[in-house]
């Protein structure tokens, strides 16, 4: 996979700012995607059948440590995507804002004329390249840190409660790691680095997607966004991806 190619970098940039759009659509759909057609949520603290559970005080500390976690603990999984988005947007500063602005322009053009979009893309590719490089560094640091946390995950989070995890089943836009080396994985995962591969996922596609299979990988297209699949916490989720080769 040519992740460092200008085309990939360009698309990754688009994906990054598109997250806000995705978050919006996920919220609009509510939790309808969580139960496989059922309106009942499968989310449960009892789902994992753990012999242990974190104490109330541990959970409180955890909740205070992050608004995201608190959102989930209080059964508001939908809120977290937008919260996270807001945090990210804030941390990205004006760079992000200008990127969003450009994205808005591009989307407008895109809906008018696909061909023009390609031209526009080529024209501002250098900007995007730079934008992406900066992004990548941020993500790189973020990933390193998160990976370090992960090494002692159980100890850090709920000491002794490695078998406890809340059985989420709600629709959500989230960030995730590709686990292990991505060797043999042909999915068009975004923002690959030598150490970790960071992706954005959704639990349900925001549209009735067009499906294509390229080199054994199934891709789904919603508008200008492409997805491939990943295996996360017992479920198949959709990874915001680079377009399949030849698209």
């Amino acid at each position, binding site marked *: 996979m040519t992740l460092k190619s200008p085309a990939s970098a360009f698309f990754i940039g688009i994906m990054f700012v598109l997250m806000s759009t995705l978050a919006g659509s996920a919220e609009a759909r509510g939790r309808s995607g969580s139960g496989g057609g059922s309106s009942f949520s499968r989310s449960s603290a009892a*789902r994992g059948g753990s012999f242990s559970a974190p104490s109330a005080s541990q959970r409180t500390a955890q909740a205070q440590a992050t608004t995201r976690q608190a959102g989930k603990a209080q059964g508001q999984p939908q809120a977290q995507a937008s919260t996270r988005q807001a945090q990210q947007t804030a941390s990205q500063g004006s760079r992000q804002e200008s990127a969003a602005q450009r994205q808005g322009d591009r989307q407008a053009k895109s809906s008018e004329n696909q061909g023009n979009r390609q031209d526009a893309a080529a024209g501002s590719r250098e900007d995007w390249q730079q934008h992406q490089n900066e992004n990548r560094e941020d993500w790189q640091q973020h990933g390193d840190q998160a990976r370090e946390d992960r090494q002692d995950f159980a100890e*850090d989070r709920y000491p002794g409660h490695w078998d406890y995890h809340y059985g989420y089943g709600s629709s959500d836009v989230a960030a995730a790691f590709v686990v292990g080396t991505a060797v043999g994985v042909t999915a068009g995962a975004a923002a690959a680095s030598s150490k970790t591969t960071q992706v954005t996922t959704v639990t349900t596609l925001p549209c009735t997607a067009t499906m294509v299979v390229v080199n054994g990988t199934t891709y789904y297209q919603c508008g200008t966004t492409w997805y491939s699949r990943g295996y996360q916490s017992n479920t198949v989720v959709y990874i915001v991806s680079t377009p399949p080769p030849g698209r």
Partner: protein
Amino acid sequence: MKPILLRLFCRSIWGAILGLSMALTGASAFAANAAPAAEPSDRDPEARAILLKMADCIAKAPGFSVTIRSGYDAIQEDGQRIEFGERRKILLQRPDRVRVEVERSDGERGLILFDGKELTAFKAEGNVYARVEKPGTVDDAVVYLVRDLQMTLPLARMLRKDFPQNLDQLITSLSYVEKNALFDVATDHLAARSADVDMQVWIANGQQPLPRRIILTYRNEPGHPQFRADLSDWNLSPKIAAGSFSFTPPLGAERIPFLAPLAQKGSLPMPKGGQK
């Protein structure tokens, strides 16, 4: 309610029996965690002996197979309690092989395989599988599966060799409820509590003191959801068909990457990581 004198009598008798049995079996592992003097009133020695014998039986088995029919409560936002169910067939061969067939109440089927080198998870719906290299023992793989991959593997601690020590550490109070006559064999019904989980377990009498039913109540979670499991078809020397632990992708199966959620892990406080 037993008269207090009778209770004391039972305890001293069972304490003596427990002490004797520990000496005979050389259960030094338990001794490290045992604190009979510190909490004599909370942990019934008789119940503890039964519980640890059960856990020891599973932990010491070179392999086993069991079917777990389980259900868990999903407490809805309006407080309504809905049960979802699963059936798992577990085949385990120590030290480094495990196979878990999963069937969900909504019909979804899956498979988890570990062959000592790789962990594979297959999902029939969508015909997809993910695989990651994870050389090690079943004990390692189980933790990795649950903690890092966030996969659901109910009663995961039961698959590890340190199950007895684990239980003994977790449990703060333990009582003998009754001898239950409703299973195909007589069972001992025990009730245990850990800091945050209430556990009931029904353990078969006889040569193979294995758990036949387990209920876990998460009493500090909103709505006090329960996990309930019936364990059947126990076999401590299962026949293992060739290829039981290796994965042959079905026709057209697509390999997809395992993902670990960053949303939770990336946002953790970092008391340790921060010091590094």
